[in-house]
């Protein structure tokens, strides 16, 4: 009986850990979404630029002139990376959700076997004679 309690405790902790993992991943995914929007906005601004217009980048307190081709390819590279990361995280989210479902089932099974054990009356005592 104590054994089942201990195992239930362990399973419950596992579930909590999975929940936290899920939450962290979701938060990261949201942050990436925001970054993607920001970079898409920048890309749109670039497309509106006429020849001869300059691009600046704010580094600390200084506006540093940027080469147009460099800036455009940097933004493009960032967007590609963000898209890949988002896909990866979404995969991880689905995996974690599956794991959580499985863990929930394990916990319910263990709880019902604990109740069955308690309700069955006097237990055969396994001991040394």
């Amino acid at each position, binding site marked *: 009986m104590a054994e089942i309690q201990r195992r239930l405790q362990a399973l419950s902790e596992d579930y909590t850990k999975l929940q936290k993992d899920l939450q962290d991943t979701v938060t990261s995914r949201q942050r990436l979404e925001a970054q993607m929007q920001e970079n898409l906005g920048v890309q749109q601004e670039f497309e509106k630029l006429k020849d001869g217009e300059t691009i*600046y980048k704010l580094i600390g307190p*200084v506006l540093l002139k940027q080469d147009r081709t460099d800036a455009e390819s940097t933004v493009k590279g960032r967007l590609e990376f963000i898209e890949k990361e988002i896909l990866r995280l979404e995969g991880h989210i689905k995996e974690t959700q599956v794991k959580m479902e499985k863990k929930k089932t394990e916990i319910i099974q263990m709880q019902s076997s604990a109740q069955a054990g308690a309700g069955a009356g006097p237990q055969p005592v396994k001991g040394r004679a």
Partner: protein
Amino acid sequence: MNLSRRMLTKEEEDAVGDEIEVRREDQDKINKFSRLHSHTLTLEDELKVKNKEKEELDDITTELELADEDDLVPYKIGDAFFHLPLPQAQELLGLSTAKIEEEIGELEDKMATIREEMTQLKVELYARFGKTINLET
């Protein structure tokens, strides 16, 4: 996760014997430990922000070393940009960098002091309560 400091099992709890009384001073120490710990978390966040700022300042300082002497540098002061001659911009950058380094130093000193205090409290509380208290952060 430090597994050696988990909650006690029933057996371990029984083995401890009589509970040690939590006196007023013990509770005060526990509360203080908690407060100090919160403080370190805040300081850590501040340090992260300042270190990132310093990194940016270092980057731009390096970039400006490669810049043309005759270029004017758009320098942000408040919400406005001023076109400054290169040497002046570099001077202002130098001042900002020195200021941030000082602020980082102060934060790190504060952290060290707090950590010392926490270690001392740990010693005292573990001495009194042993396994029945968990002070691992």
